[in-house]
């Protein structure tokens, strides 16, 4: 059995089915209870599972992440929500200084297997600090895993895999596509493994590596360009650890690559991908790896956000650049 769900409904469905299966799973955060979350990602869970498992917390990001670490170390499986990823920073210290390090610091005696959910990314005409893509911050920290899904099916499966994972996972949800489209999502729990990329479109001429909300415009560009360039589109899905095998294998086939991400260019994951391609497949390389990214500026308020985001025109232009080199 399957149900046609949006991405945000798939988050809710994943939480629901996992909570029904495992009493240790609890949801906590600001407005996640009776209100069902500002994006409705926890809708109905409070009524079904009660206030001890769907917990409205004080407005206190460090408190949310810090107490979730204690809960996780004591055998619960907390899934705290930060309302927007731009509000993560008060809890960033807890995430970096403790969640990521507890296993190592205690030489395996303790760990903090929590799943920190937060909506991320731009394109929804939001106020300041509601549109950033900061996956590189989290991916840079050993001890964390970082996931950004791009489809409803993957969202549910990756979220369940993240909850079952023994390490802390930052689960960033591209809110621009929370309700953009529907997809059949299986009933009950299933996992989409962390650390595995998905080849969304096979092609011979050029590999595009992308994730999250950029996946669909990239696939659209592939169709637009299909008569001229046969694109392979790889959705990384997990940004830490990255599925290097799939990236390198794809590149060896095509010899050309572009990376598309919303985050600023400098120090972004595109740089890591380009560097790895050079290390692993230099002799296959026929063109520089093109980075099609956000700019090195503060994410603008929405009057200018369409100029910031690497949308269709830049994606197409960048791909041509790499193809025609």
């Amino acid at each position: 059995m399957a149900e046609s769900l949006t991405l945000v409904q798939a988050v809710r469905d994943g939480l629901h089915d996992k909570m029904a299966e495992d009493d240790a799973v609890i949801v906590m955060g600001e407005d996640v209870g009776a209100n069902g979350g500002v994006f409705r990602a926890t809708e109905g869970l409070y009524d079904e599972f009660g206030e001890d498992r769907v917990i409205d917390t004080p407005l206190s990001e460090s408190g949310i992440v810090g107490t979730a670490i204690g809960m996780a170390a004591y055998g619960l499986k907390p899934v705290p929500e930060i309302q927007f990823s731009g509000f993560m920073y008060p809890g960033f210290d807890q995430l970096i200084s403790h969640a990521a390090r507890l296993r190592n610091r205690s030489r395996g005696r303790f760990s903090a297997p929590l799943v920190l959910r937060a909506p991320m990314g731009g394109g929804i005409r939001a106020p300041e600090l509601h549109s950033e893509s900061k996956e590189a911050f989290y991916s840079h920290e050993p001890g964390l895993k970082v996931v950004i899904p791009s489809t409803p099916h993957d969202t549910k499966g990756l979220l369940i895999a993240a909850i079952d994972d023994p390490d802390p996972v930052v689960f960033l949800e591209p809110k621009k596509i929370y309700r953009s489209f529907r997809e059949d999502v299986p009933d009950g729990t299933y996992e989409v493994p962390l650390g595995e990329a998905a080849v969304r479109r096979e092609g011979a001429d050029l590999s595009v590596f992308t994730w999250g909300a950029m996946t669909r415009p990239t696939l659209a560009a592939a169709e637009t360009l299909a008569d001229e360039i046969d694109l392979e589109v790889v959705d990384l899905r997990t940004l830490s650890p990255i599925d290097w095998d799939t990236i390198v294998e794809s590149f060896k086939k095509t010899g050309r690559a572009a990376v598309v991400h919303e985050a600023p260019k400098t120090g972004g994951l595109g740089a890591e991908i380009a560097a790895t391609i050079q290390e692993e497949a230099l002799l296959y390389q026929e063109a520089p790896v093109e980075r099609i990214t956000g700019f090195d500026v503060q994410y603008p308020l929405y009057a200018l956000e369409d100029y910031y985001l690497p949308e269709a025109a830049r994606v197409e232009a960048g791909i041509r650049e790499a193809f025609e080199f």
Partner: protein
Amino acid sequence: MAAGVPVPELLDRDPGDRIQVLDDDGSVREGATVPDLADDRLVELYRYMKLARRFDQRAVSLQRQGRMGTYPPLSGQEAAQIGSAFALGEEDWLVPSYREHGAALVKGLSLKQTLLYWMGNEQGNRVPEGSNLFTVSVPIATQIPHATGLAWASKLKDESETAFLVYFGDGATSEGDFHEGMNFAGVFDTPNVFFCNNNQWAISVPRERQTAAETLAQKAQAYGFRGVQVDGMDPLAVYAATEAAVEQAKSPDAEGPRPTMIEAVQYRFGAHTTADDPSVYRDEDEVERWKQKDPIPRLETFLLETGRLDEERIEAIEDDIEEQIATAIDEAESEPRPEPPEMFEYTYAEQTPRQAEQQDYLEAIRERFGDDAILED
């Protein structure tokens, strides 16, 4: 509020009304109640305090001789550490900061492990299975929300026989995580004891620069639970206050809130760490004044005068302690350097492919150039 278990009398007081049992000279204060501890437990309390002091002296000396890295001394704070740790049952959890080597020992972390940790070997921070002690936490105040979360999880699991005590200093009360951890504890009524080791100095910044509040204990009131001050250099007062707070934490049917904050007023005799020189920021007179309250002679006098201890026993204890510490130092110093691959072992439950590559790379470099080429003198 429904009638329930009454709040322990000792906690039912103003935050500034300091709990004291012993005078500075070791005599029992008028009207004070000596906690109900068996004679041998009282002597054991004394022994642990002496051990912590002597260990501290030896550790500082090891650092001075270049046999150990930077180390945070505890002298002056033995009553606060051992007195509070003694009030915890085996089932209770202790969440330390980084200076509580004495309390950690009571909770089952060996002296050898404490030495190893400050000698840069992370095996020292691997708390033995079965010991309800959390790891050392270096950043200030960030362990407070962990303690709240641990206690909250215990409550959500319907346990009622476990309390969670967390240590932090006076400086920590200025951090956001003090507020956030205490606030969650108040809102969710968690079985916590927030134990503030107010040793007057956050490195070089004095207590009055942390807050304009008269006491630190009164801050608990803002979170809806009790805060009490205790003479942190009086082990009997510390024990009594902690025991009462632990009892309150373990009473789901208590009339009052389960969490309590204890401000243990004390003094750090030595430096913040061996990298610090306190003579730059505080007067020797001040140190001497506080030394009049030294917890060890106070307890010793009490035990001698009440016939629980004699000079012969003291000497035997001192010999025994000396040997115990010497053995721990020998063991720690003869522990081989950890094998470098250990670095890659505990980041994740399962190593990533890239970590495996990096580990192999390091091993290849070692093989090719030898460890001597890598290690600094």
